[in-house]
């Protein structure tokens, strides 16, 4: 919405137009903030997520009402555990989308990393090398994406689509389309370990979110991510190395894929080319319903995580109530549409 000029302003965009025609509604320039309280509340980071918190609360009420087991600790931990892998991918996706890009390859890069880290050869070197391998494969794929996009000027959609397809192929090639069993006890133990009663995977998830939040909101890297997504040309003219930054964004996303690969290898005790199918769409959907603009420049990590939790809670509700997964997907689709409609209303109230 914000990029649409009013007709009166559009008049000034041709090069010979009267200079003074490009007035920027000076009426708004001064005086107190006249927007409605609701609009102002929705403009704050926390406010924009309020809707999602409400949705989550409604889902919990439905859960408690329809299934006795919903509110048990073990069920809540199940929800968190199943959210953790998609959640880690979503953190990387949030960076990329706020920076004005998109990464379609996350699911299959994760699969490739899980396969590469669990070959007999890699496993023979022990758990540290397996972890290193997964992270290196993820970051390497991200680097290729980033270089193609920033220096090769390939559209992000296409570059990462190509990466999705070739990562899938490479993962099948390495694994011979078979699931590779994780024999290393340390890696296998990650998913089953609990600390203070909470699965280690959930700590992984929380740690990635925490680091991601700090980087996005407290560092120059995060600030420049918003700047580049918000106005690439202005960022370039302000002296920011936008190409290097773009590469780094995709490397961050790749790193998240590597971390997720270790998590999924541990959870399923396999590395497989079938892991992560369509995870990229779930991650994108979570980012979008979390209030991040698909065009970049605006968004919150907390919103994305709430988006992930909403989706996993829905899945959990359907399982507890023995409902078909087809219906579940319809519900997810409706939620995406409802969330985006709600957000565009809120934006219009606050132009």
């Amino acid at each position, binding site marked *: 919405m*914000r990029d649409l000029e009013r*007709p*009166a302003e559009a*008049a*000034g*965009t*041709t*090069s*010979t*137009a*009267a*200079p*003074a*025609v*490009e*007035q*920027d*509604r*000076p*009426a*708004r*320039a*001064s*005086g107190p903030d006249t927007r409605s309280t609701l609009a102002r509340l929705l403009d704050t980071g926390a406010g924009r997520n309020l809707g999602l918190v409400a949705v989550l609360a409604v889902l919990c009420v439905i859960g408690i009402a329809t299934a006795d087991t919903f509110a048990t600790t073990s069920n809540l931990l199940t929800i968190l555990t199943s959210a953790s892998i998609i959640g880690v991918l979503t953190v990387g996706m949030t960076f990329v989308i706020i920076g004005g890009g998109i990464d379609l390859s996350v699911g299959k890069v994760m699969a490739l990393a899980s396969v590469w880290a669990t070959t007999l050869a890699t496993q023979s070197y022990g758990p540290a090398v397996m972890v290193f391998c997964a992270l290196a494969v993820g970051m390497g794929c991200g680097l290729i994406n980033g270089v193609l996009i920033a220096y090769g000027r390939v559209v992000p959609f296409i570059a990462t689509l190509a990466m999705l397809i070739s990562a899938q192929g490479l993962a099948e090639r390495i694994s011979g389309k078979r699931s590779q069993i994780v024999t290393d006890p340390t890696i296998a133990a990650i998913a089953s370990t609990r600390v203070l009663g909470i699965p280690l995977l959930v700590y992984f998830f929380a740690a990635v979110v925490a680091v991601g939040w700090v980087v996005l909101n*407290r*560092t*120059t*890297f995060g*600030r*420049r991510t*918003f*700047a580049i997504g*918000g*106005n690439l*040309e*202005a*960022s*370039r*003219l*302000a*002296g*920011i*190395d936008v190409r290097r930054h773009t590469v780094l964004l995709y490397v961050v996303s790749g790193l998240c894929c590597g971390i997720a690969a270790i998590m999924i290898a541990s959870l399923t005790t396999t590395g497989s080319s079938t892991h992560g199918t369509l995870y990229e769409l779930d991650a994108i959907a979570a980012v979008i319903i979390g209030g991040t603009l698909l065009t970049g*420049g*605006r968004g919150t990590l907390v919103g994305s995580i709430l988006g992930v939790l909403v989706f996993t809670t829905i899945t959990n509700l359907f399982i507890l109530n023995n409902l078909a997964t087809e219906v579940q997907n319809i519900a997810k689709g409706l939620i995406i549409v409802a969330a985006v409609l709600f957000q565009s209303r809120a934006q219009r109230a606050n132009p």
Partner: protein
Amino acid sequence: MASPERGAPPLLQMHGIVKQFPGVRALDGVDLDVAAGEVHCLLGQNGAGKSTLIKVLAGAHRPDAGEIRWEGRPVTFGSPHAADVTGIATIYQELDLVPGLSVAENVFLGHERARLGFTRPRELDDETRALLRRLGHPEIPPGRELGRLSAAGQQVVSMARALSRDARLIVMDEPSAVLDPEEVDNLFRVVRELTAEGVAVVYISHRLEEIRRIGDRVTVLKDGRTVARGLPAPSTPTAEVIRLMTGRTIEYVFPPRPAVPTGDPVLEVDGLGRRGEFADVSFSVRPGEVVGLAGLVGSGRSEILETVYGARKATSGSVRVQGRAVRAGSVRAAVRAGMGLAPEERKSQGLLLAEPVYRNVSLPSLSRFARAGFVRGGAELAAAAAVTAQLDVRPADPTRPVRTLSGGNQQKVVLARWLLEECRVLLLDEPTRGVDVGARSEIYGLIRRLSGQGVAVVLVSSEMPEVLGLADRVLVVREGRVVHQAPAEELDEGRVLDLVMEGSRV
């Protein structure tokens, strides 16, 4: 050349047209009458209201007051479609064609010949071929993808499109700007054929010689008003036309000019060129000096500025700041060397509109407020607040989104950015575009103050008085070349306009 018919009511009469935009009257009582079969030239400086007027004529803007008569009958154009149906076609400066479609598809875009929703490509091609033949360009194949044609070819297509709608009045906004001399000859031949058939042409150009060659009558606009209507184009002296265009009513208040600074130049540009845009540009700027680049839109002024800044890569020549060469084509190198740019399109090139003021101010200098990559928000906000207060950005709340500020205050935010970065060379491209008259003198004061602090300023502006009033030295740019260089006191508006327009290629 057809002469206007006397007696019959003119094809088009516009009387007392007023168009108000927030904060400015773009048109303040414009009169224009155009007879069938004439070439009517519209003249005026940048900002005189030409573009707004043709947008009113094309139905893109609704006038707030005034009357439009078509063949003597009052009409209103509520939409571009209404103007189209009446018989007015506009060929805009930036051609509004679709590069991916074929020539024929472009000609009939919006009024495709179709039956039951199915297009009839054969029929389209035949009609397009006939139109192109009429325009003297039978060699353009109707099936060719438009994007593969030259600029001149695309213009012919644009004209074919106007003809296909049986336009009786064609508005041409600087049609010759993209053409070679032979192509201009051909354009004129087509224009004469059209007028011989009774079509009226409203012709906008900055090249006075062209107007003398093709025009029948001239209407001059200045500051949104008609200052002369229906002058005979071939016989009105150039000096008279320039006098009409420049006699100002808007007050420009410039701060007094301090003594011309001495000292070693901080910015030295030597033989700078960019293939196809400009060549052999050399100048130097001392600390505290303001150098203005005067020229028409499209003369290469902005390109020169952006190349000095590294936003475009120079193909020849060098740029030095304080004696040290700056790597070509690298904005980062330029910023490190101490340059700052306030770009021409403030909204699309300068600002993060949704972000608060202080984040826009700290954008280039963010790492100064960071330790190990972590931004110290308090220090950043305090520093940004200090410079915005110094420049009197209103409202004085640095956490407000930049979007909610007026044009003048947005420009101050861009200046504040470079003040915070402590830049030594400030490049300003149209610093008062979209800034209302009151805020302009404030911006002028700021530019003077910055130069008083020893900043070297290079200023590009379409407003001649602005360049002459602010700059110590003026470079006149025409078609990618510096054609004249002189201290500002030795020049006046008429002299610069003369240099900029009269000698231009026909």
